[in-house]
């Protein structure tokens, strides 16, 4: 049952920062599907290099709150990324996380009043709003700058220097750990991967109805 908590974390210290566009050496093209072969969006694939680069920079990411929903629903970030939680709704939100990777709480606030939160540990952070139970978001903190999130057709592209990597996959519906695999990227041809995620929980992320009548 510990689908969300049991993810093994590879927190590798990274000593450098590479702009993916600038150092375009090798490319991974992956398609994420479920057991039935249907494409899955919001899946995050991270490639952990053998040599951890150092991170001196503090990039910023945004986890907005619109219409009582976190946007985006899944956010992938490198460790030591500062995430801002602007509130675009006219109601206040009380954003919290009890995830071991980052436990925090942003008490009721409006607009940009909340202080940014720095995620300094790799791992999965599940966000919730204490006021709005239906609000759920996932922040995957990874120890690498090479990661991507699948689009609606389940496709993602990662450009990284050629070399050996550990491949990690995250998805809110993924129960249990996705087995880590090794991947060698070469300059010559982009690596084409189809990653099947299973098992998947039925409606992970969708809060069950609160109707008591379903009890009886």
């Amino acid at each position, binding site marked *: 049952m510990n689908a*969300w908590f049991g993810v093994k974390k590879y927190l590798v210290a990274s000593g450098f920062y590479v702009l993916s566009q600038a150092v375009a050496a090798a490319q991974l093209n992956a398609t994420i599907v479920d057991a039935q072969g249907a494409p899955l969006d919001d899946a995050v694939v991270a490639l952990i290099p053998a040599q951890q680069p150092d991170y001196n920079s503090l990039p910023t990411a945004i986890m907005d709150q619109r219409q009582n929903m976190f946007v985006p629903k899944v956010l992938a970030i490198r460790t030591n990324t500062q995430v801002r939680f602007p509130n675009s709704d006219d109601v206040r939100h009380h954003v919290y996380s*009890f995830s071991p990777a980052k*436990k925090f709480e942003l008490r009721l606030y409006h607009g940009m009043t909340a202080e940014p939160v720095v995620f300094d540990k790799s791992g999965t952070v*599940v966000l919730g709003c204490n006021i709005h*139970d239906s609000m759920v978001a996932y922040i995957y903190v990874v120890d690498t700058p090479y990661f991507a999130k699948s689009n609606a057709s389940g496709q993602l592209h990662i450009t990284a220097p050629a070399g050996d990597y550990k491949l990690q996959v995250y998805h809110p519906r993924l129960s249990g750990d996705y087995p880590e695999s090794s991947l060698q990227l070469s300059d010559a041809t982009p690596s084409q991967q189809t990653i099947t995620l299973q098992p998947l929980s039925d409606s992970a992320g969708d809060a069950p109805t609160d109707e008591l009548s379903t009890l*009886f």
Partner: protein
Amino acid sequence: MPKFSYLLKLLTFLIGLVIALETISYLATRVIINKAVTQNARAELLAGGELFSRIMQKNAEQLALSVKVLTEDFGFKDAVATNDEKTIASALMNHSARVKADIGVMIGNDGKLVASDEKFALQLDNEFAGLQAQAQVRGQAYDIIFIDGHAYQFVMFAVKAPVVIGLAGMGFEIKQDFSAELRKLTGLEVSFVSHLDNEFHYLNGTLQDEQPNNLIAQLALNEKLGDVFIYDDFISLAVPATRQNQQLIAVLQVPLSHALSHFSHLNVQLFILALVFSLLAGVAALFLARSVTRPVTLLATIARRIAGGFYSTPIVVNSADELGDLARAFITMQKAIGEREQQVLYQSEHDPLTGLPNRLLIFPRLEDSISRSKPLQQSVFLLVIDIKNFTQINDELSQEIGDAVLREVGQKIDRLLNYGEVLRLGSDEFLAILMAPDKAAINEWVELIHAAFKTPLQVSGIQVSVEMNIGIAAYPEDADSADSLLRRANLALNHGRNSEQRSCWYQSGWDEKHLRRLHLFREFETSLHAGHISLYYQPKINLEQPDTLGAEALVRWHHPELGFISPDEFIGVIESSGQITILTRWALKTAIAHLRQLLDEQIKITCSVNLSALDLLVDELPAYVAELLQSQRVPAENLVLEITESAIMREADKCLNNLRRLRDLGLTLSIDDFGTGYSSLSQLKKLPVSELKIDKSFILNLDSSEDDQLIVRSTIELGHTLGLSVTAEGVESEAIKTLLKHYGCDTAQGYLYSKPLPAAEFIRWVHTYLIGLGR
């Protein structure tokens, strides 16, 4: 009482009918009521079941709400997320207490369990597996769980932060209080039964004593859930306590008696109704019975009245029904019987020959007259009229003429009587009852009758002369009652007839004499057998040869109450009654026995016994005498039989014949009381007698009366001429004896020698006499 029995029958029938009907109606009602009650109870149970499941749901909802509140609490989430067990436990306790839940549990994602009650947690095994699985998937779960023999309503929610970080749940124990509460709400007996591993176990409930065990036994027997069943006294419904879990069964029950209690007053009403109907039936029966018995009683009364001889009493009949018809028939019958009885009565009370009232009416009429005579200050005269020569008419002419004569005489007397009444007494006797102030009027009328019959009657073309004898007695002068009046009038008639008087008035004393005669007649035989009648003997002495002895046996009657009764009186009585023959036989037997005694004492003597005229008419007498003589071995010449002159006058031939037969036996016959009767010399000549006794009336004054001397002397000579010895009776003096001896009389009898003596004395006298003679 026949009326009563009819009433009783009707009553029994009607009340029986009512009771039968009421019983059927009662039973039918019972069945319907039972059905209705069962249906009601079923509905009640189902409603109770509905209510019960709502309460259960409410409980669960309350519980769920509470658990939800708990799981949504940020602090709790925090505690769970940070795995702060103490905080979790206290939060569970706090929330459980808030909703009065019995237990709260928290299960972490790692499977670690935290409970509000540690002891409780220790007993847990894998009871939550189902709940957990469900809550994992759906975020919430509800079920009944059993822990250590207790049942709990349990709700479990996922703790989300916002993804599931654990499961929290709370449970209500289904306790005794709960069933009691339910009973209060539903009015039903509520029991909770677990059904685990095919075994029923009674958890708790409102049943008492043995009832839980019975229920378990019944459930094991009959496992149908959701259906109403009846056992013992309970209408029961067993339903699963929740939809989710069939292991907890709620049993709702209504005691039948309780369900029926609403109808018990109906039973009472039915019973009262039955009573009232029975009562009404009773009244109806009474009324009906009376409506029948009353006319029947009336008819019975009529019948009794008819039986009692009342035919003229009118009967009122109002009813127009069959009984009315019967009553009218009764009335017709009553009239008819009345008329017929009148006819019969008339016929029985009237003489068909003369049309005159007959003897049946004598006393009623006499008494009627007597009762009327007093206020009228008149006397009642009763005349007994007898046709003097009727027997002669009947014998010489014919019975038809006799009847015609009777008719004529009756009618003639009736015509002559313009007041009073004429009745026919019988045969040729008529009665006339007259009322008059004195005898004179009656004497006139009597003379009128005698005058009327002076001219002969014209009967069937021949002339018949009739004469009347009339006896008259008057009330109250001669008699004080109807029967004595009639008797005395009859006595007067008889007296008149005997004394040849045409009319004879009753003289006082006659009746007393007559009654005494009747008395003597009744007493005679008793006295004879009792020995009150005895034979006395008076010696007869031969004047020439004084040692030739004779004796006359004389009957003496010493009645213990009436005293000495003179033979003159009673001989006449028993002669007229015919008892004289008995006396004669007794006298003969006694005298012959005494003769035997005298002969045994060597006394030569003859004994005379008197015979009555009637004795001579009995042909058996000679044989009887012969037998007596023979049996006593007494020579016939020792017995003398004395007969009076008058005795031989009637049926002379027969008498003569018997006398000859007696004489032929060898005994002596003697004529007694000679000179007082009317015997003719020619007859005397024919009689086979040897002795003649001159009546004492000629002897008593012989020495002074020259007439008597003449008669006696002539009679003695006459007797001697006819070859008879002569005895004189009533010789009381020596002078008379001397005279008689002088006249040549053979034998003398009288007080000169001795008065009549009883047998023993007489024997002594004979001895003395014979000694006196010098023998």
